[in-house]
C-alpha cells in the first residue's frame, strides 16, 4: 500500500508538468497578447515590452525558463525576488515554485494572488460538497430503501431537476427569493470564511447539482448492495434495520460516490466561477477566467498547475479510499 501511494505520488509530478506544458503551448498558440488590447502600439514600444518579458528569445529558451521558475532552479546572485520557496544548500541558493508576476495585475505575484483567492474557492467548494454529501446520501439511501414508491420517484425527479438546472439560473432565483423578497441573506458579499450568512446562498447554489448526482449514485449503489448475500446474512442475524443499513450496506453502496468525489472536488474548486460571478466573491475561478481573457500567462499557468496537482491528488485519495471501504481491493 505504502509503495503504491509513493509510486502514484511520484507520477503526479511529471503528469502535472505535462499539463502545464500543454497549457503553455495553448496560451502561446492563441492569437493576441497581454499588451495588445485596444490600440496598436508603436513598434519600438512593442519591441521593448517583448524584450522586458523575454519574448524576443527563442521559444525553447522561454519554455525552459518558465519550467525552471515553476519547478526549481539555482538563484542568480543579483536576483532580489522573494516569491516562492527559497533555500540554500551550502553556498548555492535555490528558488522553487515561483510563478512570476501577473502581467495584468501589476505588482502582484501569481503566488500572492493564489494565496489570496484559493481559500475563498476552497471554503465554498468544501462546504458545498459536504452539504451535497449529507443531502445526497440521505436522499439516495431513503430512495433505495423505498424503491418504486412515491418517495423514490419524487426524490429522483427532484435530483434530475437539480442536474438540469444551470447554476446561473438557480443562483439568481435563490437571490430573488431569499435576498430581494424575504431579506434573509445578503445577495452578494464576502465576509471571510466565518461570514455564515453570506455563505448560505452561494453554497446552496453550488451544492445543488452535486447533491443531485450523489443522490442518484447512492441510490444505484445501495440497490445493488441491498440484495447481496451479506446483507441477507446481516438481517438473518437479527440486526436492526438501522444497523444493517448504516454499518453494512452503506459501506459498499457508497463506492460509486467515492469514485465521483475525486473529479467532483477538483471540478468544484475550478468550477466555482459562476457562483463567484453571481455573488461577487473574490475566488480563484474568476481570476482564472480573467487571466485567460487577458492572456495573463503566468497567472493561467499558476492556476492550471495548482488545479492539476489537486486533481491528481484527489484521484489518488479516491483510490486509497476504495481500499479502506472495500477490503477486497488491494494495491501492491
Amino acid at each position, binding site marked *: 500500500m505504502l509503495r503504491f501511494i509513493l509510486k502514484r505520488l511520484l507520477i503526479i509530478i511529471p*503528469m502535472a508538468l*505535462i*499539463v502545464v506544458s*500543454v*497549457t503553455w503551448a*495553448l*496560451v502561446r*498558440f*492563441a*492569437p*493576441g497578447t497581454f499588451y495588445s488590447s485596444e490600440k496598436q502600439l508603436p513598434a519600438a514600444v512593442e519591441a521593448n515590452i517583448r524584450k522586458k518579458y523575454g519574448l524576443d528569445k527563442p521559444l525553447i529558451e522561454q519554455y525552459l525558463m518558465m519550467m525552471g521558475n515553476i519547478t526549481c532552479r539555482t538563484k542568480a546572485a543579483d536576483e532580489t525576488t522573494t516569491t516562492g520557496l527559497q533555500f540554500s544548500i551550502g553556498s548555492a541558493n535555490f528558488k522553487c515554485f515561483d510563478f512570476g508576476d501577473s502581467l495584468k495585475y501589476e505588482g502582484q505575484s501569481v503566488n500572492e494572488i493564489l494565496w489570496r483567492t484559493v481559500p475563498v474557492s476552497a471554503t465554498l467548494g468544501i462546504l458545498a460538497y459536504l452539504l451535497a454529501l449529507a443531502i445526497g446520501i440521505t436522499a439516495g439511501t431513503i430512495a433505495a430503501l423505498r*424503491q418504486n414508491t412515491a418517495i423514490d420517484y419524487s426524490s429522483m*425527479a427532484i435530483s*434530475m*431537476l437539480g*442536474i*438540469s*438546472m*444551470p447554476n*446561473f*439560473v438557480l443562483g*439568481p*432565483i435563490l*437571490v*430573488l427569493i431569499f435576498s*430581494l423578497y424575504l431579506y434573509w441573506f445578503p445577495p452578494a458579499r464576502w465576509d471571510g470564511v466565518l461570514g455564515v450568512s453570506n455563505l448560505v446562498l452561494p453554497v446552496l447554489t453550488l451544492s445543488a447539482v452535486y447533491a443531485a448526482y450523489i443522490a442518484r449514485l447512492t*441510490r*444505484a449503489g445501495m*440497490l*445493488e448492495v441491498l440484495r447481496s448475500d451479506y446483507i441477507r446474512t446481516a438481517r438473518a442475524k437479527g440486526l436492526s434495520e438501522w444497523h444493517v443499513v448504516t454499518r453494512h450496506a452503506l459501506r459498499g453502496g457508497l463506492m460509486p460516490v467515492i469514485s465521483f468525489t475525486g473529479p467532483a472536488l477538483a471540478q468544484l474548486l*475550478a468550477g466555482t*466561477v*459562476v457562483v463567484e*460571478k*453571481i455573488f461577487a466573491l473574490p475566488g480563484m475561478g474568476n481570476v*482564472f*477566467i480573467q487571466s*485567460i*481573457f487577458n492572456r495573463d500567462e503566468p497567472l*493561467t499557468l499558476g492556476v*492550471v498547475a495548482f*488545479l*492539476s496537482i489537486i*486533481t*491528481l491528488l484527489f484521484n489518488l485519495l479516491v483510490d486509497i479510499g476504495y481500499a479502506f471501504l472495500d477490503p477486497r481491493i488491494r494495491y501492491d
Partner: protein
Amino acid sequence: MAEELRPVKGTSLWKDAWKRLLKNKLAVFGMIVVCFMVIAVLIGPPIVEWSTGFAYDTIPANGDLVRSFPPSMLHPMGTDDQGRDVLARVLLGGRISLMVGIISTIVSLIVGVSYGAIAGYLGKGIDNVMMRIVDMMYAVPYILIVIVLLSLFSGNNAPGFIQYLVKLFGGGAGLSQIFLLFFALGLVSWLTMSRIVRGQIMSLKNQEFVMAAKATGVSTPKIIFKHLVPNTLGLVIVYATLTVPSVMLTEAFLSFLGLGVQAPFASWGSLAADGIKNIAIYPWQLIFPGVTMALTLFSLNFLGDGLRDALDPQMRKV
C-alpha cells in the same frame, strides 16, 4: 385437438428496446417535451412574427416602447431592455441551443467513437499512448481549449467548411462564430465517449466473429468500422443522448462568460446571462429562458436515462 401452429414472430433488439422505453413514463414525458421543443423552435419564430410583428431582433420604432415590459397578452414572456419580444428570442435561442447540442454531439461522436475504437482494437502500446493523451486532456481545462479554438479560427481564419456552411445559411460573422462554437464544443466533449467505446471494443475484439473476419482477410479498418463499431451502437446512442444536455450546459456556461453566442443572435445561455443583470427589476428576462432551458435539459436527461434502461438492460442499475 392440437392448436394450429403459428410461426413465432421474432422481435428485434430495437423493437424490444422501444417497448421497454414506452413503459417508462418519465422517459415518454421527456420524449414528448423534447419533440414539442424541437417543433416549437422550428415553426415558432415565424408564427410569433406573423401574430405580433416581432422577430427575434425587432426593436420597436416607437422610442417609448424601447424598455422592458412585464408579460402581457402581446408579449407572453415580456420584453427585454431594448423592447424586443422575449418569447421570440427564447424560440430563436432554443434553435441555437438545440443545434449546439445536436451538432456538437455529432462531432464528439465521430471523433470519440473512431478514437476509442482504434485505441481499443489496436491495443498494446498504441492504446496506451492514446489513452494517456485522453487522461491529459481531462486535466487541461476545456475552457482554455475552447477559447484557443474560438480565437484561432474566428472571422476569416475559419476553416473552409465552416465558411461554406455560413454562406449556405447566408449569414455574417455572428453565424460563423456560432458554427465555430459547435465544432469547438464537439472537439472537447469526446473524451468520455472514447473511453466507453474503447472498453466495449476491447471486450468484443476477442469474439469469434472478429476472428472469422480476420481469417477471411478483412482489412483492419473494415473490421473496426464495419464489424465492431455497429456492435457498440446501443451504448453510443445512450451516451450521445446524455451528451446533448451536457454540451448545452457547457454552451450556456460559455455564453454566461460572454464567450458563446454573440448578439443579435441568442441562445438560452446568453439570454439567461443577460437576464441576470436585471434580476431585481425585470425577473422575467431570466426566468423564462432559464426555465425553458431547465425543462428541456430535464427532459433530455430523462430520455437518456430511459434509453439506457431500454437499450442496455445489463447496465441498468435496477
